[in-house]
């Protein structure tokens, strides 16, 4: 058999005495896309960060092209032909797209002067090559989360590395953009490069990967070729127990309108939006990247600079200019960018879970620490958040578990209307099911959910109805019976 590009055995890593990775093993062959699977907190990102020289392993050996190696820093990994798309997006906000992509590799001329013309040109060509539709000279801080992710993809590919690590590269992407990535991956493997691919979207794994490795609780479980395994068994390996159904949907929409919007306008060109959601209903807001769905949620939650249109909640016209008013009106909003607007990364799990419900776990100003702890514990159990303790800093949680903390924070407010923007982003199959269960129970108990999702499966599986957005306007509406992937895409594009 040919020489593997990379062979890792016995990787171990613990943080402050808590093991994150106990036995990481992985073999990557040239020309293959190798899936690294595992539940939230299984140690995938930790493992990949060690490969990249971001973390230092406590034990284990790494062979690169058969030669033992240890990377002290990412620059050494880069020098050895490894590049990474990290799970947590990490742009330099005040710099341009081109500068971000070629950071550290800028073309220079006389006196160390950066040749910006060439730089922009190179970057634009790269982006256009993937049909990403992003201008190379725009500032990173003006991009949406999805666009930032595309830039990071372009950046990782631009290194022309032998090994490309992709840690949930599509978590913020729509399907159209994801397809661009898959096409790029095919070209890479055709040229003999290896890709390590992490995703919680199993359909992706089955369509593009050719082998898999599963970690569970920080340890290697199994590896094999993709065509020797089916979905149910993979789920079983990841979750550790068989899981029969992916979705849980037991709600029945009622007749009464809980929230309706009339002629709503929002930032960035969203206007004339009309829709309603009924008691007990799960309404999907579907659309392509940049169609304005997030802007509508921001408007509903008082985070928008534009305030046109009318919002009616349970029959009462309600003015919402601040999140406080929105919360008082019974809304809760799980935002799409958990780092920016979801989590207080300096705080611990308990702080974050209780952040929006502090008045309920305190008497007057005095915190009731017991109540705080109980509330946090309840959510940790309900959502199966993997954390050493509720006093652990959220920044130390795995990405999926961070997402669960954001969800938990809003569930604790006991809202009547839930706004969910990509709620299962980065969440493993087991936990997704927990989230679907909560959504189902919540609507059954008389709540209403509006959900933005770029995963068609999720829309098909959970929604009672879908409102499809295109270019800031409502393009159409589909009842559950009419829902299909083709129809959704047709309306959206």
């Amino acid at each position, binding site marked *: 058999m040919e020489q593997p590009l990379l062979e890792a055995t016995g990787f171990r890593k613990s*943080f*402050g*005495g*808590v093991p994150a990775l106990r036995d990481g093993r992985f073999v990557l062959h040239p020309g293959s896309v190798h899936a690294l699977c595992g539940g939230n907190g299984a140690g995938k990102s930790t493992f990949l960060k060690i490969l990249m020289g971001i*973390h*230092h392993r406590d034990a284990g050996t790494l062979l690169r092209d058969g030669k033992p190696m240890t990377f002290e820093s990412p620059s050494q990994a880069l020098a050895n032909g490894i590049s990474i798309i990290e799970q947590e997006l990490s742009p330099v906000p005040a710099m341009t797209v081109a500068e971000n992509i070629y950071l550290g590799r800028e073309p220079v001329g006389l006196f160390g002067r950066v040749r910006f013309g060439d730089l922009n040109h190179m970057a634009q060509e790269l982006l256009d090559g993937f049909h990403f539709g992003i201008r190379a000279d725009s500032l990173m801080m003006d991009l949406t989360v999805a666009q930032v992710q595309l830039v990071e993809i372009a950046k990782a590919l631009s290194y022309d590395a032998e090994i490309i690590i992709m840690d949930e590269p599509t978590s913020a992407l729509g399907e159209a953009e994801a397809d661009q990535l898959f096409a790029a991956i095919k070209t890479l493997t055709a040229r003999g490069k290896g890709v390590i691919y992490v995703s919680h979207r199993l359909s992706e794994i089955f369509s593009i990967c050719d082998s898999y490795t599963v970690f569970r609780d920080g340890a290697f479980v199994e590896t094999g070729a993709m065509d020797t395994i089916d979905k149910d068994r993979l789920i079983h390996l990841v979750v550790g127990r068989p899981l029969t159904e992916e979705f849980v949907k037991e709600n029945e929409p009622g007749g009464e309108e809980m929230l309706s919007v009339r002629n709503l306008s929002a930032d960035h060109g969203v206007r004339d939006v009309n829709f309603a959601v009924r008691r007990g209903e799960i309404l999907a807001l579907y659309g392509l990247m940049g169609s304005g769905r997030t802007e509508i949620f921001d408007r509903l*939650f008082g*985070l928008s600079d534009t305030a046109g249109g009318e919002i009616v909640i349970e029959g009462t016209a309600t003015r919402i200019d*601040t*999140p*406080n008013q*929105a*919360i008082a009106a019974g809304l809760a*909003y799980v*935002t799409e960018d958990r780092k*920016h*607007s*979801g*989590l*207080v*990364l*300096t*705080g611990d799990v308990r*702080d974050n879970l*209780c*952040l*929006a419900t*502090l*008045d309920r776990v*305190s008497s007057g*100003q*005095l*915190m009731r*620490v017991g109540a705080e702890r109980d509330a946090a514990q309840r959510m940790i159990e309900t959502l199966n958040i993997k954390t*050493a*303790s509720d006093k*652990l800093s959220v920044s130390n949680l795995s990405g999926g578990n961070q997402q669960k903390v954001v969800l938990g*924070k809003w569930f604790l407010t006991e809202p009547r209307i839930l706004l969910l923007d990509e709620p299962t982003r980065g969440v493993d199959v087991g936990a997704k099911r927990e989230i679907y269960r909560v959504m189902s129970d919540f609507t059954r108990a008389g709540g209403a959910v509006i959900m933005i999702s770029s995963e068609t499966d999720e829309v098909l599986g959970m929604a009672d109805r879908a409102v499809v957005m295109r270019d800031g306007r409502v393009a159409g509406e589909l009842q559950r019976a009419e829902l299909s992937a083709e129809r959704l895409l047709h309306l959206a594009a």
Partner: protein
Amino acid sequence: MTTRIGPLAQRYGILIALILLCVVLAAVNENFLSQRNIINVLRQTSINGILAIGMTFVILTRGIDLSVGSVVALVGVVSASFATTSTAGVIGSPYMPLIAVVMGLATGTAVGAVSGTMVARFSVPAFVATLGMLSAARGLTLIYSGGRPVPALTDGYRWIGTGDIAGIPVPIILFGLVFVLAHFVLTQTRFGRHVYAVGGNPHAAKVSGLPVRRIRFAVYAISGALAGVAGMILAGRTGSALPQAGVAYELDAIAAVVIGGTSLAGGIGRVSGTVIGALLIGVMNNGLDLMGVESYYQQVIKGGLIVAAVLLDRSRKSED
């Protein structure tokens, strides 16, 4: 549980540095551990300690308050002007010290509130807003006092700086009270939680429905009020309120906060750390004086010690 070791070392790293310094000083100078000297150190630390506790609130929200030194002076002259033996004669009542104290607290809080408004309401960067206040409050102090000390304070007022209760000097008692109260507020109250959240991620705090502006405003008011307390202690201690008092106190206060492990980036820290930081600075000053180190060398040694203490603390932290 083993998980507690990391945070534990992190929490006590700087305390170890403090203890180490004390052990060395005790070995070198027999007076260092005398009751009298311990009281001296605590009393000398009280002013910077109280300022630093107020500063901790501000820094926890990602802010900074450069005006505390000027506020110390302003509060000093304003409150003292209600407590000179001559005014006391005029308004002549046993409540005078009380009125003076109320005026002092009100002045400090008001100045803090102005800074807080600029930062919270008008989004002026905290550095600029409080630098402006540093200059303006000093100017007001000089105008109010005509550049002269407000002298001859009544004994009732001076008690704040020189009195004692059961043998413990009042400044130390106030320092202790402020510490306990601040610790309680930050760890046990809803407002305290808000302060940490606003500093950790203002945007997330806003989305979660917290009154971000009001919290920002409040921390400057708190810092101003505590600078007021410090100003009255100082006036009481020195016997008259000097308009030139408090110059550059902000640096020592911020230093205590940062040495105590609070992050200038906001959201992380505790007042217990700040108190240890302030004590470290106080012990250092006291120890070097006790040992009679020449002043030029004192400055070099102080610079080195500050860094060494923090190095000792940081070296216990895990990798980046």
